[in-house]
């Protein structure tokens, strides 16, 4: 009974913490937008009046029109209230609802990110467990060195090298991801190969090393030695005894890597002209479309926190021993 309370209490606590982090992120995002130097009014006036300097009256009028003369707390409450009721605001320039701008291309980005994430987890668990079980041997060292080398490279560098190799030197794959309007990239899967490969190449080394480190540690633990003394085969020890316990601490780290895929996705979509959200996003940042960027970054922050939360729950499902019996109060 105490254990049950501990589990429910832990879940409630984690959920509250996640909501708290998203709320804190929303304050940070709003605060940065509102308080950092650089005025939205200037941005709009420079777009409209062809760079001419506007009179103080015009500035004040625009300020009042945008509601920027109201107190910060009121504006924050209005923004959050809108987001919670599904209204993400309107783009400063096109005037279109932010939800519409994102919605049009989010599916394509989600397909790219999901394909990369699935492959990433498979590679991390596979190679990580393999290298960790053979910690210290030549093959382990080879994987470590290769991952340091590959993992240092920025996405656009790997993407460019892959394009040069597989689109020009050996013309096997398209150098840009052309998807017909209204079509999904899944209908022409060849446009996904190089973008996914780039993301995986950048992220896999780091994730493999995370799993490897945990696996190497688990393989030195007493119960693994006991299993060896019982004559259980090495491979069976890895898959049946060590893997779950190694994955438990590695999973939150993996979740972090998946959340960090985001920045990579933006670069990769740009390199391959992939029809995802990145073009709007980069354009929005460059033109300082504050309402758009404000809502998009909050959405992604919430997504990131959700991934971490799911990873924690996944660990609880996979490794019953780790379910709190009142000892994990953090």
């Amino acid at each position: 009974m105490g254990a049950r309370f501990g589990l429910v209490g832990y879940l409630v606590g984690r959920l509250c913490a996640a909501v708290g982090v998203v709320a804190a992120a929303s304050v940070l995002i709003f605060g940065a937008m509102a308080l950092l130097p650089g005025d939205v009014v200037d941005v709009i006036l420079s777009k409209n009046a062809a760079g001419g300097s506007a009179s103080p009256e015009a500035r004040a009028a625009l300020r009042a029109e945008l509601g920027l003369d109201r107190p910060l707390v009121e504006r924050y409450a209005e923004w959050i209230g809108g987001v919670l009721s599904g209204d993400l605001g309107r783009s400063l320039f096109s005037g279109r609802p932010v939800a519409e701008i994102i919605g049009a291309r989010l599916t394509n980005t989600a397909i790219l990110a999901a394909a990369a994430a699935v492959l990433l987890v498979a590679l991390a668990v596979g190679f990580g467990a393999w290298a960790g079980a053979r910690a210290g041997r030549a093959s382990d060292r080879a994987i470590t060195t290769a991952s340091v080398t590959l993992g240092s490279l920025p996405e656009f560098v790997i993407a460019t090298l892959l394009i040069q190799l597989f689109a020009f030197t050996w013309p096997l794959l398209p150098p840009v991801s052309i998807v017909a309007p209204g079509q999904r990239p899944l209908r022409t899967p060849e446009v996904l190969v190089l973008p996914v490969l780039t993301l995986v190449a950048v992220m896999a080394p780091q994730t493999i090393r995370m799993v490897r480190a945990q696996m190497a540690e688990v393989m030195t633990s007493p119960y693994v030695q006991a299993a060896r003394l019982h004559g259980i085969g090495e491979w069976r020890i890895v898959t049946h005894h060590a893997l779950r316990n190694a994955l438990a601490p590695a999973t939150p780290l993996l979740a972090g890597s998946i959340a960090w895929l985001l920045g990579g996705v933006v670069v990769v979509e740009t390199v391959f002209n992939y029809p995802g959200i990145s073009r709007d996003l980069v354009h929005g940042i460059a033109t300082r479309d504050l309402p758009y960027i404000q809502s998009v970054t909050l959405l992604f922050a919430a997504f990131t926190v959700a991934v971490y939360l799911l990873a924690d729950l996944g660990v609880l499902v996979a490794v019953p021993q780790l379910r709190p019996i009142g000892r994990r109060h953090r």
Partner: protein
Amino acid sequence: MTPRAIPGLLTAAVIVVALAGPWLAPHAPTDVIGPPFSPPGPGRVLGTDYLGSDVLSRLLHGGYTVVGLSAAATAIAYLAGGALGLAAGLAGRVDGVIMRPIDVLLAIPPFLVLAVLAAATGRGTVVVVAASALANVPGISRVVRAAALEVSVRGYVEAAYARGESRFQIAIRDVIPNIAAALFAELGARISGTIALVASANFLGLGLQPPTADWALMVAENRTGLAVQPWAVLAPVLLIALLTIAVNLGGDQVTARLRHPRSATKADAQPGSTH
């Protein structure tokens, strides 16, 4: 020359090229010397770029910003992260005040930080450096805090408190020398990660703007000509690749040496031995 020296030497070589390059370049970075995207030929070793400027000259001019901005971002990250971590670890009262926002920051991908900063204040190098530094601050401050907490209960620190030394003096004289290994853990990965972030931001056009010569910007400008004149893209790509890999491997060696000062040879053997 031992294989272990290779990453350090390569790093030094790229940095020398980056810093001395502007004096060695045969042309100014914005001089037009031929038709756009001409292939390599006499007088233009690496051909020309999308505007007809000399790729070699732009390459020699364009490393300065890569190295400079990354170095600035790394230095700021270590100063800020180290100071915050020390304060949180040594002064229990401010621990929560410092670490809770840092935990939130840790959960936010660096690209989002860059997006928010660039949208709020306008794109530019200051924003890129700030966002790249912020990406490393949470990691550094958490490691430093943990190490400082551990050191703070050791006898020599308690003795220093008993002598009446100020917390600041203790932090500088007694704590920092003993947490150097933690402070510079993952040094290579952090610096090369910072280079990658700075370069990616410039590649996306959120930092430096044309006609500035910068390796990442060169890749963005010339990638439409990859099929015609690959060197305008591949040359800067290969230099960025070389720099990040060499820095990562070299940084790991520094970390290993800090962690095992006496058995540096043995500790280094792992990453370096396969060369």
